[in-house]
């Protein structure tokens, strides 16, 4: 049952990444065809998006740790946390991640690192104070799952594709508004095609953003399911999520750029955020799914 939950989540996120690639391909084809942007434009967009996203992919661990002010968790100071993390890493069959603590009363945790060899897990001091052993194990297992599922790679892929679509859309509208008209507009149906392209240029980046958030939410469900499989105790994580969500304190040092890394969306308490544009699924639904696992 737990294995099935994990397998279903993996299938769904691959399907989403596939849809994403289809969207990118569609936009690229439409713009080269309709606007005579030519292949160089598409190649350039891919190159720019790749460079931007993969730069952050390689330096993400150092960047995020510096942004949040995390410090290494020493064993003599946090024997409990260190022992739990070491045990879970053994259970997941990944190398020991580097463990950090963030001085903050808000209970939260995040994972980063480009691959399991560079894995990083960080928890806030507020989390350590609030949770019991089983709950802390659930949270750390969720973070370990992000590392072993290579969610940083998945997130980077998604961001890259958003970047490609955004750049193409931007260049597409510019060339339509300011540039010379494509040769095809000389023909009869040109007007409609240009209108279509314009529509695509506006809608596609939005669709790409929505897909990116959908992928992020899917990966959260997957990490929850993997954590349940690892600890064989879904209740621990469910109880922890309930406690974390009930805490009204905001987390310092968290912004939209790093929100997807945390176990619980640090921006969740801000008003005016729609579920569609959220990196995390609603916490009630996560708890419901965890509890239905048994």
């Amino acid at each position: 049952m737990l294995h099935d939950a994990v397998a279903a989540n993996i299938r769904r996120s691959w399907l989403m990444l596939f849809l994403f690639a289809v969207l990118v391909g569609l936009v690229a084809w439409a713009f080269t065809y309709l606007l005579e942007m030519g292949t160089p434009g598409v190649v350039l967009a891919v190159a720019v998006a790749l460079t931007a996203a993969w730069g952050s992919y390689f330096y993400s661990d150092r960047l995020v740790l510096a942004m949040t002010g995390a410090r290494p968790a020493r064993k003599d100071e946090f024997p409990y946390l260190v022992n739990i993390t070491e045990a879970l890493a053994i259970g997941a069959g990944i190398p020991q991640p580097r463990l950090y603590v963030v001085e903050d009363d808000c209970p939260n945790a995040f994972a980063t690192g480009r691959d399991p060899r560079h894995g990083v897990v960080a928890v806030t001091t507020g989390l350590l104070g609030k949770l019991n052993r089983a709950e802390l194990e659930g949270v750390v297992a969720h973070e370990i799952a992000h590392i072993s599922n290579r969610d940083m790679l998945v997130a980077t892929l998604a961001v890259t594709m958003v970047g490609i679509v955004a750049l193409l859309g931007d260049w597409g509208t510019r060339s339509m508004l300011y540039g010379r008209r494509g040769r095809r507009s000389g023909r009869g149906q040109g007007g409609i095609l240009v209108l279509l392209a314009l529509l695509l240029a506006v809608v596609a980046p939005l669709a790409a953003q929505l897909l990116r958030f959908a992928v992020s939410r899917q990966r959260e469900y997957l990490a929850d399911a993997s954590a349940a499989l690892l600890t064989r105790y879904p209740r621990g994580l469910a109880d922890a999520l309930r406690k974390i969500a009930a805490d009204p304190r905001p987390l310092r040092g968290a912004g939209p750029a790093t929100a997807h890394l945390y176990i619980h969306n640090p921006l969740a308490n801000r008003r005016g955020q729609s579920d569609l544009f959220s990196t995390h699924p609603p916490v009630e639904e996560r708890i419901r799914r965890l509890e239905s696992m048994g």
Partner: protein
Amino acid sequence: MELWLLLGLLGLLGLLLVGSYNRLITLKHRVDNAWAQIDVQLKRRADLVPNLVETVKGYMRHERETLEAVTEARARLARGGSVGDQAQANSMLSEALRTVFAVAENYPQLKADRNFLMLQEELAGIENKIAYARQYYNDSVLGLNTATERFPTNLVAALFRIGRREYFETRGADRDPVRVQF
């Protein structure tokens, strides 16, 4: 035409063989690595046990049997043997240690001893790591054993003598609540 068909079939067969073989080797190494993880933790625990016995001896004057059970289980574990033997010795040691910590509740001075508290957290941590290492090991063994039975990897496994492995099974004692004798 028929020659090409034959060559194509042979090529396909070769690919299948190579794929199956590589998969089996990956699974075999995963099991070996998982066993090494268990082994490391078992050794670390065995190293801490004499420390614990030394610390506890001064306080627990009337618990000779309890401590002897620990020392005996440790000695049995140190002898090694098959996966099953070690799993059994490990269960014995876990149970003996749990009895020590349960009995320790009756000795307030011991419970205030910093060295004892440190050993208690460390041994509890190792116990937890052994549990996770065992879970990962058993999952890995399941993967290998399944592959050695499934077609067509079973043929390749038989050809290269890659055999099934033994699960690291806990005995009932490991799951039972602690018995405390007064």
